[in-house]
């Protein structure tokens, strides 16, 4: 176990150490005190635990690593993640998992606005609620919300599948509720299990996705934009 104290070791040195070739083992980062860009650009099958709150872009562009943030996360946690797992034990600010291509992001508390914006293949499971414009222009992957969703959910969505257990304040353009088939129940069960929420009844969720009516420019669609 390697431990870095961000009050004693500059972030640059910590991130350099986390980029070391052949990195392995468990790493703990203590005293982050809201620092930005903690544990970004990892590309190794290691476990990193951050004990405390982090600022913007924690675990940004993660590949392979399992990163646990034992606190709250600022804007853009796990942005553009490619693979691996990022778990936020507290709440996440806006744009959690933005543009992420793969891996699993779990926010055990609430996620603010634009959760999963422009997501491109990541799976995101939020224990609480998500703010407005979540899954905006979401392209691929799955977003699971155990609580409620704010206004404009899934606006201009492409092929991401969204599952919400609670209420949705409003749906964005071209996002519609869809039938929950057996394959969707199975998919949702797997996602909840991966995120550690095994007690939920998948049938209590509603699936949302693209109506695909805005995929081509057409004069009759202008009111929707």
């Amino acid at each position, binding site marked *: 176990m390697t431990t870095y104290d961000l009050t004693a070791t500059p*972030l*640059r040195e910590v*991130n*350099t150490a986390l*980029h070391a070739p052949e990195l392995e083992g468990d790493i703990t980062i203590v005293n982050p005190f809201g620092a*930005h*860009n903690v544990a*970004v*650009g990892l*590309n190794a099958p290691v476990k990193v635990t951050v004990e405390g709150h982090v*600022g*913007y*872009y924690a675990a*940004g*562009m993660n*590949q392979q690593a399992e990163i646990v943030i034992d606190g709250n996360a600022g*804007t*853009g946690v796990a*942005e*553009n993640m*490619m693979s691996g797992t990022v778990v936020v034990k507290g709440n996440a600010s*806006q*744009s959690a998992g*933005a*543009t992420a*291509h793969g891996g699993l992001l779990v926010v055990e508390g609430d996620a603010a606005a*634009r959760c999963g*914006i*422009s997501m*491109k*293949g990541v799976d995101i499971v939020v224990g609480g609620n998500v703010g407005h414009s979540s899954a*905006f*222009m979401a*392209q*691929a992957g799955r977003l699971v919300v155990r609580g409620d969703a704010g206004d404009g959910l899934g606006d*201009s969505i*492409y*092929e991401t599948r969204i599952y919400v257990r609670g209420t949705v304040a409003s749906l964005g353009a071209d996002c519609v509720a869809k039938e929950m088939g057996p394959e969707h129940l199975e998919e949702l069960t797997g996602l909840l299990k991966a995120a550690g929420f095994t007690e939920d009844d998948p049938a209590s969720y509603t699936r949302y996705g693209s109506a695909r009516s805005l*995929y*081509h*420019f*057409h*004069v009759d669609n202008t009111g929707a934009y």
Partner: protein
Amino acid sequence: MSTDTWGLRESATFDRGAIAAIQRAAETGIYDIRGWGAKRALPHFDDLLFLGASMSRYPLEGYREKCGTDVVLGGRNAKYPLHLDTPVTIAGMSFGALSGRAKEALGRGASEVGTSTTTGDGGMTPEERGQSKHLVYQYLPSRYGMNPDDLRKADAIEVVLGQGAKPGGGGMLLGQKISERVAGMRTLPQGIDQRSASRHPDWTGPDDLAIKIAELREITDWEKPIYVKVGATRTYYDTKLAVHSGADVVVVDGMQGGTAATQDVFIEHVGIPTLAAVPQAVQALQELGVHRQAEGGVQLIVSGGIRTGADVAKAMALGADAVAIGTAALIALGDNDPKYAAEYEKIGSAAGFYDDFQDGRDPAGITTQDPELAARFDPVEGGRRLANYLRVLTMEAQTIARACGKAHLTHLEPEDLVAVTIEAAAMARVPLAGTSWIPGQGGF
């Protein structure tokens, strides 16, 4: 019979172009989308002239005395700044908008003369990386194909806030160009009319951008220069904010800068001319003490309507450290070639006028994803043509610089220039020829 003899009067307001546009809008119900940049007449580098050396300045001998053209970009923070042999770079153009072979040719041509090329809104292709000695990787609002592996392979990173053809607008790529490969790289369904975001998904404003730039540096271990590209609008403020955010290089793209697909109304009516933007950017850099500084300097790259070595020299005399070309590079590759005149006519255009880059039927095989059309284009030949053109631009700029007595292109200065129109004098902040009058700089 010629209409000249009819005694008919065409409206200056509702001319034939305006009437045709109204008729087209009424018929289709959708705005006109096209490629290229602003086509309207604008004050431009043509409105400036150099004051060659005579009695009070000594020229350099054209064939004997050296005139340097090399430029270093991004030394402010990056461990590995770009060292280019010529200050004429290739602007960002996407795979998707262009064929893979066209992107390869851009890399070949740029590498042959020791300059950089740039990815676009569609990610980095292996062909392009493989053929580009210096490759700038664009970081765009859409983040299509963005991944840390390619980020680490790049020689520089360009955070794109906008482009001159459409400041404030996102990209679009119509369905006919979303081939299986393009769709795969962008994680989109094949064949849809794709709309790119106009705002970055995880930051807003200069304070956030500073953190974002720091993140990109951390991920790439502070090795690569970070550019910030803006479409020319409030250029003075944008340049200052870009520098405060940590940019190593600021790229300013004027409204003549090209696009692969944007609404015509956007191209022609949003943004300011390149000529008006350059002095604003230079003023901002000077006030911050980072203009043309060997240590800690921030370089300025100017694009939007660069066609000749004279344009290169004029942009640099106004204070640019380098320029970028897009439309001109495509023309050098073979775009709008008269040899395809009959085919341009078949699709309702003409060689020299073709701007329908959005529809994927480019007879020259450059702005297309159609395999048969793309196969017409030879990337080796295209690369050679581009290298020729880049050499001509560089030699032309050197010719002018020597005539002004300069041993390096970056020694050119505003004092070497005059303007032939009042508008250009005001925008470029150089005197009207034969006078000491710079409109807008005090007095009247």
